[in-house]
């Protein structure tokens, strides 16, 4: 007997899939090549001339790049979590077991996040190289690593919820990438654009919206952990509060999808998901 049998089963399935070692190896090789390239650019072949400020840039660049890659990779592993089960006709049996909707969703989120977290773990030795050149302190690396794991779980949760709400994997993938697009691209581009506009007479409006939008951007918040930009405590509250609220809002229809008995609480016919 296991606390969450679905989680255990998913781990087993995902780690046995043929693409898993390819993804992990491909990711590590790419990150290693990038790291060595950046470090070489940093020292320009002169190992005696170490510039910690430049090494800090290497650390920041690596972190932001890693965050971007895992943010866009996570929906690929999570957006078909429930809709894929429905399409493969395995969901119907799962829903007749005593597993709760919460247990099913948590199992799917954590199992989808696991492979992405593994990618972060295999890249940790590369971060240790940055220490050699004085670019970051261990606390910063740990904070960035923890924040990246948090974002993976967050994006996986949003993708799994979209996957439960949407009837087809195609739609859930579109919705998941739209969400990641908002988080990484829209909030960053518009937020930073408004910051540039803040020089104009619209200063108050532009700055307030710029700060709020950038607070929703995981890259911006990660940069603050690396000490490159300053964000207020309000920004952290906004980041955590906004995405927690989004997960909570999406969880309601998702649970209704998985437990049709709840529809009797509402007027109208249930939407038969199986």
């Amino acid at each position, binding site marked *: 007997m*296991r606390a969450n049998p679905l989680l255990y*089963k998913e781990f087993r399935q995902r780690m046995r899939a043929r693409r898993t070692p390819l993804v992990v190896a491909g990711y590590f090789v790419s990150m290693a090549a990038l790291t060595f390239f950046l470090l070489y650019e940093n020292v320009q072949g002169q190992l005696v001339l170490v510039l910690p400020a430049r090494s800090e840039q290497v650390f920041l660049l690596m972190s932001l790049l890693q965050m971007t890659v895992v943010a866009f990779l996570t929906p690929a592993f999570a957006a078909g979590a429930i809709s894929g089960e429905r399409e493969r006709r395995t969901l119907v049996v799962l829903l007749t077991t005593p597993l709760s909707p919460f247990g099913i969703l948590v199992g799917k989120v954590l199992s989808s996040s696991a492979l992405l977290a593994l990618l972060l773990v295999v890249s940790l030795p590369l971060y240790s190289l940055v220490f050699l050149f004085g670019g970051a302190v261990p606390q910063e690396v740990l904070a960035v690593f923890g924040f990246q794991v948090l974002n993976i779980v967050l994006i996986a949760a949003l993708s799994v919820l979209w996957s439960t709400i949407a009837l087809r994997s195609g739609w859930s993938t579109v919705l998941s990438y739209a969400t990641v697009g908002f988080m990484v691209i829209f909030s960053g581009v518009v937020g930073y654009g408004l910051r540039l506009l803040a020089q104009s007479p619209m200063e108050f409006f532009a700055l307030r919206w710029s700060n709020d939008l950038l607070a929703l951007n995981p890259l911006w918040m990660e940069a603050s952990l690396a000490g490159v930009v300053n964000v207020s405590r309000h920004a952290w509250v906004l980041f955590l509060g906004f995405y927690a609220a989004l997960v909570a809002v999406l969880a309601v229809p998702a649970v209704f999808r998985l437990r049709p008995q709840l529809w009797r609480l509402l007027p109208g016919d249930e939407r038969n998901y199986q």
Partner: protein
Amino acid sequence: MIQTQNLVKRYGREVAVNQLNLTVRQGTVFGIVGENGAGKTTTLSMLATLTVPTSGQAFIAGYEVTHQPHEVRRAIGYMPDSFGVYDELTVMEYLRFYADCYGVDRRTAERRAKELLDWVDLGAKRHSYVNALSRGMQQRLEIARCLMHNPEVLILDEPSSGLDPRSRLEMRAVLQRLRSLGKTILVSSHILHELGSVADEIGIMRGGELSAIASVNVMLAHSDAFRTLWISGEGPREAWEAAFADDPHVLNVVDKSPAVEVLYAGTVEQQAQLMKSLMDRGVVLYQFAERPTDIEELFLRLTDQGGEAD
């Protein structure tokens, strides 16, 4: 053990199941037969807590399906008409996963999985990957999966659908063995013949309603009285029609050129009289043979005559 009271399911204006009243006694096998779209799957889906009834009630093992779905899920083993299996899992891992879902302890799950795999003739496949099994094997594995938590009630939706003739026979053998376990079983099929050797009672669903229920024992008792005759020959059409019309034991005649199929409720001596009557009217007989009675035809005959034959 299974009881429905005025169970109704509507999808918008469409009525999928209409005022269904059904009782399946403990330890018996009840077969639901009906064409596609008759409401079988919707009924079983409501009983399996996958769909909520629009009105009416359904009880399984004393639990109401809408208000006590958790208890119902523990009491049932459900096999859907169309199902998939998980990739990258062996047969044993597949069964262990479902045992874990029901909170069966590891040792019991291991023992039960091995017993059940032997029971459905898949003992040699326990380390094979589930997705590598044939469709027939997967269907039998699903039966084993349904039994992993030792439920009181089994709900099987068209367990033989999509199988080749050989696999159908294997599945029928498994279903017959299921009877010996003393479980209460509700099984559906669109072929009545398939359930004849498995079910204690059979109900026909048409247009979302249970139009008739008959005991298989009663049907078998009647089957001696009903015979299917296969007659071929040459002669004037009027002669054939007159001979059949004059014989009160002829219940039904179906033209299956070059022969006719006659449902006959008479003795062997009375059959001989029919043969003589045809020949007296100038019919040259090529063949006059008795065939095994089609259970489907018999069922319809019984239920048309007396409503509930039980």
